[in-house]
Structures are given as structure tokens and as C-alpha cells.
């Protein structure tokens, strides 16, 4: 695991731990297998502090997407304990899942935009689901689209957008409701270097505003340039469990 010098300087000691806020997310011995296949994740343990920024790295098939799926509650672990926003997911009633999901923003690797909706409608989706009135969020959505550089494409359908535009649209949808955690799966996988840097700056800006960010990426250069801490998965195991100040593998 690489260390961010800025963050290494605040490596937790006992006093720091006592004062540290409760993690927004913690994994304890989490394993995951699909059907009767091999385990995709094996005994993964770590926790994320509020407002932290991490990259989740590893080669293809290492289990990055699976780990994200477990966090955004699209799958259940085969073994282990996941605590999200202080809630033990193993005993959480199913009816409370939607409320937890609304606190999580997800940027999918393949965007998963709704092709039959305009850019504006795609971004407004989480707010509609949360039951907000259109008048209450109309201007906010337009402002957010402008912020990600899609102000002139409010009414565009996803099929008419470039890869970079789709990526930014997916990011706007993920952050529109002000999530506590932002997850992104290979968000720079389909864009050039310049766009990748712009997207990274976007995530950093969101992190500055208090959002906990976890980005899955195999782009080692991007991770190195960002200087942000890294969670490295290899063959389903969390590599180098040594902790830094904000991420605490256990």
C-alpha cells in the first residue's frame, strides 16, 4: 500500500484513535463468492473514516468491483461483517436498505445511464426517488450539470454524449443528492489523460466538501499522481494491511 506523506504524518496513535470519529464503513473478515465458484474476496478487513479519500487498486479480477458491490448493497457477503453508517448489515431489515443506499453515490464502470431519459432526468433520478418535488431540485440539477461541464447538454440523450460526457453525467447523478460516500468503479477507464485529471479534480473537490470517496482504478499512474492512499486487492485479499491515518485495515 502506498502512503500519502501528508496523511502518514497523522498516522493514528492511541490518543488519536480515541478522538477519531466512528468509521462510515468497516469490513471485518468479509469473504464473497458467487454461487459455488471460488471466493472473489477473502477475509477482507478495513475501515474508512468520514471524509477520507482512497483508491482501490488491483489487477482485473482482483475483486474491486465485488467489494464496491458489497458497499453499495447490491450483494451480500458470504462471510464476515460489514458495518455501514454504524449499522450492521447482517441484521438490517430489508426495508431500511433504500434509506442507506440514498446515502451512497455510485459511478458505475459502464455508467448505467438510463438511455431513455435526458441528461437532466438522469441526474435528477436520485432526487425523484427520494420523493423531492421537481421545483425543489430543478435549479440544483441544472447547476450541477453546469459544474461538470454539461450545462449546454441538459436535454441531450445519453446515446448522443461522448464517453467523457457520459462519465461526467454519471458522476453528477452519483453526487446530486449529496451522498456521504461516493464510490466510483474505474471512472477514468474510458477517457483520455486530460479528462482523467479533470474527473479526479472533481472527486477531490467533492472530498473537500466532506464526502468520503473510494475509487476503484487500475490506473497506477493516476493513483501515484494523486498522492492519495491506496487499498490494494490481489486475488481477493487486501494487500499490505498496514494502515494509514484514514484507512484502517484490521
Amino acid at each position: 500500500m502506498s502512503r500519502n506523506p501528508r496523511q502518514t504524518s497523522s498516522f493514528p496513535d492511541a490518543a488519536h484513535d480515541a478522538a477519531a470519529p466512528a468509521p462510515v464503513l468497516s469490513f471485518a473478515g468479509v469473504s464473497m463468492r458467487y454461487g459455488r465458484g471460488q471466493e472473489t474476496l477473502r477475509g477482507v478487513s478495513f475501515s474508512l473514516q468520514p471524509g477520507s479519500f482512497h483508491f482501490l487498486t488491483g489487477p482485473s479480477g482482483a475483486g474491486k468491483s465485488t467489494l464496491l458491490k458489497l458497499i453499495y448493497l447490491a450483494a451480500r457477503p458470504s462471510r464476515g461483517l460489514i458495518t455501514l453508517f454504524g449499522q450492521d448489515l447482517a441484521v438490517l431489515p430489508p426495508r431500511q436498505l433504500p434509506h442507506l443506499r440514498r446515502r451512497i453515490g455510485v459511478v458505475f464502470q459502464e455508467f448505467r445511464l438510463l438511455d431513455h431519459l435526458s441528461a437532466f432526468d438522469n441526474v435528477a433520478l436520485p432526487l425523484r426517488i427520494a420523493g423531492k418535488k421537481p421545483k425543489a431540485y430543478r435549479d440544483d440539477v441544472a447547476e450541477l450539470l453546469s459544474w461538470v461541464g454539461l450545462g449546454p447538454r441538459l436535454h441531450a440523450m445519453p446515446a448522443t454524449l461522448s464517453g467523457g460526457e457520459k462519465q461526467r453525467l454519471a458522476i453528477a447523478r452519483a453526487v446530486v443528492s449529496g451522498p456521504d460516500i461516493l464510490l466510483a468503479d474505474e471512472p477514468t477507464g474510458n477517457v483520455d489523460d486530460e479528462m482523467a485529471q479533470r474527473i479526479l479534480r472533481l472527486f477531490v473537490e467533492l472530498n473537500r466538501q466532506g464526502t468520503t470517496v473510494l475509487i476503484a482504478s487500475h490506473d497506477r499512474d493516476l493513483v501515484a499522481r494523486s498522492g492519495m492512499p491506496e487499498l490494494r486487492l490481489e486475488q481477493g485479499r487486501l494487500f499490505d494491511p498496514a494502515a494509514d491515518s484514514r484507512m484502517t485495515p484490521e
Partner: protein
Amino acid sequence: MSAEAAQSFLRRWTPGPLMPRGDVRDASLVFVIAVLCFFACLAALAALAADRAAGGWAAQLQGSATVLVRPTGGESVDAAAARAAEALSGVRGVNEAVALEKDKALALLQPWLGKDALDDDLPAPRLVTLDLDPIAPASAADLGAALKAANIDATVDDHSLWIKDIVRAGAWARAAAVGVFALTALAAAAVIAHAARAVLAARHEIVEVLHVSGAEDRFIAGLLLRRFAAMAFVAGVIAAAGAGVLGAAVRLAGGGEGLTPPLPVAWIDLAALLPCPLLAAGVAALSARFSALGLLRDMSNKDWT
């Protein structure tokens, strides 16, 4: 897009449909539901017509009675029938008593015995037909007592046996029509349930995005509920209009007297078709909601989306 154009877009913007709008499959489904609703409408019209027919026949029978007169002693059967008619016309609750002439009595036997068997030697019984007061008809006992007092050997038939049969037949006809109506409604519900599950399966990716964005199962089921209710409403309108045109044609072509004497259609019956679109929408809404919730629950049991 200029700032002005963006403002214009925002002013005109209304949220788009979260489930994609209809395609060819939707049109096919509307057609199938319309056909089912059409049969349900016809069944409803048939039930009303059967009810009216049974009621009419029973009323006719209740308003009349028949007396079979047999000769006694040296008196001719015609004289006995004339006496019976005279005696019965004085009974309270009888408006008119008419003794059928010999020719008419023989004519009644012709369908059973054939024309050749009807000759003058045949001891054909005589009938007295009674037109009873519809409000307070004379009872069979009153009529029998009057005949006995006049020393006439006769049998009174107040049609009670026939009336029971007709009422029973009418009830069966109504039940059959209601059964057909219920079956078609169930068939429509099954078709919609199947279609709702097919939509969820085909739009699995949309469902997953909605789930991950925090949508509850009932929110997603609500999307399907509104969609299928709207489709069923349209199908119901088409079916009711079709059945209405057919019912009107039947009524214009003769109604109770001409084209469909056994099942007379009245204009007022067509009003029964008016709730059809709402009923179809209601059945579709319930069916879509429960099938969608069932499938979403199954999906959630497998994983969380």
C-alpha cells in the same frame, strides 16, 4: 445551449418516464386485454339480458293461470268449460276467464300428436285461461275452491312449477355470465402479471439502477402499476366501445322482439359498460403491483438488488 435556452428548457421540463414508454409489445398487450375486456363486456350484457328475460317470463306466468276441465255426468266438455269460465271470472283476483274453443284446444295438441291424429272423436280436454290481477292474483286454492263449489271436475295450473324452473334457469344464466366475466378478468390479470414480470426481467438494468439509487420495491412496483393501469384503461375504453356498438346494433336490429328474443337487450344495459375501463385499470393495477412486488422480493432474496 445558451443561458436563455437553458432557462426555457427548465421552465418546460417535466420529469420523463422512469420506465421506457411503450413499444410493439405494449400494443400487443393492449390488444389482448381489449379482447378479454370485450368478452367480459359481452358477458355482462348477457347477464343483464338473461336477468331481464327470466324476470319477464316469470311475470307473464305469474299473471296467468290455466284450468284443465274434464266433463262430468252427461255434461259436454264445452259446457263444463263455459261453466268453469263463468265461475272463475267471479273470483277475486281474476281479471278475465276465457274458455278455449275446441279448435284452439286441438291446435295446442297438434305439436305432440300430429295433425292426422286430431279428429272429432279425440276426447280433447278443454282449457280455461285466466288473466290474473298482477297486484293481488287469485291463488290456486281460491280457484280450486270456486271450481269445487260449482261442481266442476278440473285441475288448476298456476304455473308455479314453470316459474320455479324459469327463475332457476335465469339464475344459472346470470351465474354463467358472471362466471365468464370473472374468468376473463382473471385471464386479464394473469396476462398483466406475466407482462409485468417480463418487463422487470427485460429492464433488469433499470431496476438495478433504481435500487442502487435508493428506490423501494413499492416505488418500482408503482411505476409498473401506473403503466399497466393506463394500458388497461385504454384497452377497456376500446372494449367497452366495441361492446357498446355491438349491443346497440343488437338493440336496433330488434332488441327484445326481433333479433334476440331470448335475451332482450335494453338501452340502459349499455350503461353497464361504462365502468369497464376503470375495472380493467383496477385489475391491471393490482395484478401488476403484486406480481412486481413478488418478483422484486425474489430478486432481493438472491442479492440486494
